């Protein structure tokens, strides 16, 4: 475990809320009062089902979306209070890798121009020096440096993702939010990208927020894992701990659903059934948002009328469940 309690977090989210207007006065409650920290040098995995708010949270952290309320402190500075030039300057330290390697590169720009753009935005390098740096970045991400004048459509998905990674590390940021960076890639290519990201982390002391819906990948790459459900973080723990000892019924269900590529093990595993599907974030359920699907819910009291706080259940292990101690046996 890389976390040292005394160390100041690189990023701290406090009561972050994001609502999107959904017409007729309704709103999509995409992220609801979320709190967490990310420490320097660690990789935090963020998992959850589609639509639970992972990407939205990622975009709030990188300030591509404004928060509805709450604060996001990056090295002690509240990003939500910054705008214009001040915010732009902060972007040097906060970068993002996107899910879709096809739509995240401008088809009308050469790969060299795409990677050089962040450098130009901050007037860091010019002319020859800039070209050299671009070629070096291409080499670092495993691409031929002489491809800098090619266009994105000439590259495969995995190669394009490498270009996106080169762009993200060009400014030597401190934190990179990677939003499902491998889920659009071929299976045989995914390991290449994971390995590259791990190598870069060591080389440049990067901190990652790694968003994914695939828990096996998250388990491999993360030091700590946060599980999100319907806009809320329901469990946070060390990666090994959360897999060994989940304290939230949802985490346990999620884990049991991941197919393991081993027919013998897979045929013996027991799947935790969740009734129904994720409710609409426009009208999330009362109390614990998970209660309509939870196999151990006690309704109405306390699960349907009392929202469980995200509390420490063991050292470094927080979960939001009234009955977390029952999870290991009862779920």
């Amino acid at each position, binding site marked *: 475990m890389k976390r040292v309690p005394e160390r100041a977090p690189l990023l701290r989210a406090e009561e972050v809320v994001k609502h999107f207007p959904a017409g007729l006065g309704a709103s999509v409650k995409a992220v609801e009062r979320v709190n967490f920290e990310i420490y320097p040098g660690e990789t935090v995995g963020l998992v959850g089902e589609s639509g639970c708010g992972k990407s939205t949270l990622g*975009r709030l952290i*990188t300030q*591509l979306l404004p928060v509805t309320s709450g604060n996001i402190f990056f090295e002690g500075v509240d990003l939500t209070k910054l705008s214009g030039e001040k915010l*732009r*300057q902060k*972007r*040097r330290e*906060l*970068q*993002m890798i*996107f*899910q*879709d390697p096809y*739509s*995240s*590169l*401008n*088809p*009308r*720009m050469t790969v060299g121009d795409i990677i050089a*753009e*962040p450098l130009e*935005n*901050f007037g860091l390098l010019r002319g020859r020096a800039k070209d050299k740096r671009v070629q070096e970045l*291409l080499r670092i991400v*495993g*691409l*031929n440096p002489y*491809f800098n004048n*090619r*266009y994105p*459509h*000439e*590259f*495969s998905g*995995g*190669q394009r993702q*490498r270009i*996106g990674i080169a*762009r*993200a590390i*060009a*400014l030597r940021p401190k934190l990179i939010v990677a939003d499902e960076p491998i889920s659009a890639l071929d299976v045989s290519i995914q390991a*290449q990208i994971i390995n590259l990201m791990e190598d870069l982390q060591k080389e440049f002391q990067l901190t990652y927020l790694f968003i994914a819906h695939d828990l096996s990948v998250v388990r491999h790459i993360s030091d700590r894992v946060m599980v999100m459900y319907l806009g809320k973080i329901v469990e946070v723990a060390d990666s090994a701990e959360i897999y060994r000892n989940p304290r939230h019924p949802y985490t346990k269900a999620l884990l049991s659903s991941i197919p393991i590529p081993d027919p013998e093990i897979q045929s013996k595993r027991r799947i935790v059934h969740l009734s129904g599907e994720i409710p609409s974030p426009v009208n999330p359920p009362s109390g614990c948002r998970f209660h309509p699907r939870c196999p151990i819910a006690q309704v109405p009291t306390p699960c349907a009328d009392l929202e469980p706080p995200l509390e420490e259940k063991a050292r470094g292990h927080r979960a939001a469940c009234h009955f977390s101690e029952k999870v290991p046996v009862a779920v």
Partner: protein
Amino acid sequence: MATAPGVATPEEYVGDTLAREQTSLWADAWRRLKRNRLALGSAVFLVLLLVVAIISVFWTPYPIWRQGVAPTYQTPNSDFLLGADQAGRDILSRLMVGAQVSLEVGVGTQIIVAVVGVTIGLIAGYFRGWLDGIISTLINIFYGIPDLLVALILVLILGRGLDKIIFAIAVTRWMDMARLVRGQTFSLREREFVEAARASGTRPNKILSRHILPNALGPIIVQATFGIPQAILFEAFLSFLGLGVQPPTPSWGAMAADGFHAIRIAPHIVLVPAIALSLTLMAFNFLGDGLRDALDPRQKR
């Protein structure tokens, strides 16, 4: 050359093979356009028209304004290939200069329309909010007023010079372009590469010029290509009403109007400019269709 599992990798290195051969997006579009016979034929026709229009600046078979170079109502013969009009002026000469007028009107209005429409569309689409509100209202107001009324009032106020006609037509025509660019910008700004540009600290002006505009260029070119014949037709119509380019500068619309009273005895006076006009309009429309299919292969009619 065996290697232990998990240790070494083959020499072929991911970065050394490209997924596809290098063809630029424009080269790709050109390849598709080349296969479209109709569009290609139209383009050839329009290039010839342009050549004729340029020649007419320096030379015409006969002076266009001199009356009586031929007998009045002369039908086409070897001296006057397209005949002569009621004042005995050579129709071919006038047709050539008329081409120049038509192209100037068509291209001139579209240049103004493109500059104004693209700027307004980009601003409305990118910044949204109240700016977009004002611009959208403005667009709707302009759509609400009849084109002809706007053009007539402007011509009456400004006069009938070619530049004024071009301006007047552009005033009635910029909204389509603005609306198109606004829509394109709206959707492009949600694309991940624009988000990526914002995330890496790109300023809005550069996002618009480097990321959004180049990606909207295809539809803009197509729209402008369709806009040219509309403007030419509009000018012809104004001329037909006697409110087009100041005589004696010949415009196809005015030529047709001039011959209208004699349509029974000398139909060629009306037919020649009318056919020239139709062919030109058709050519621009075919070219526009071809460009649309070539530049925007997904968005078929």
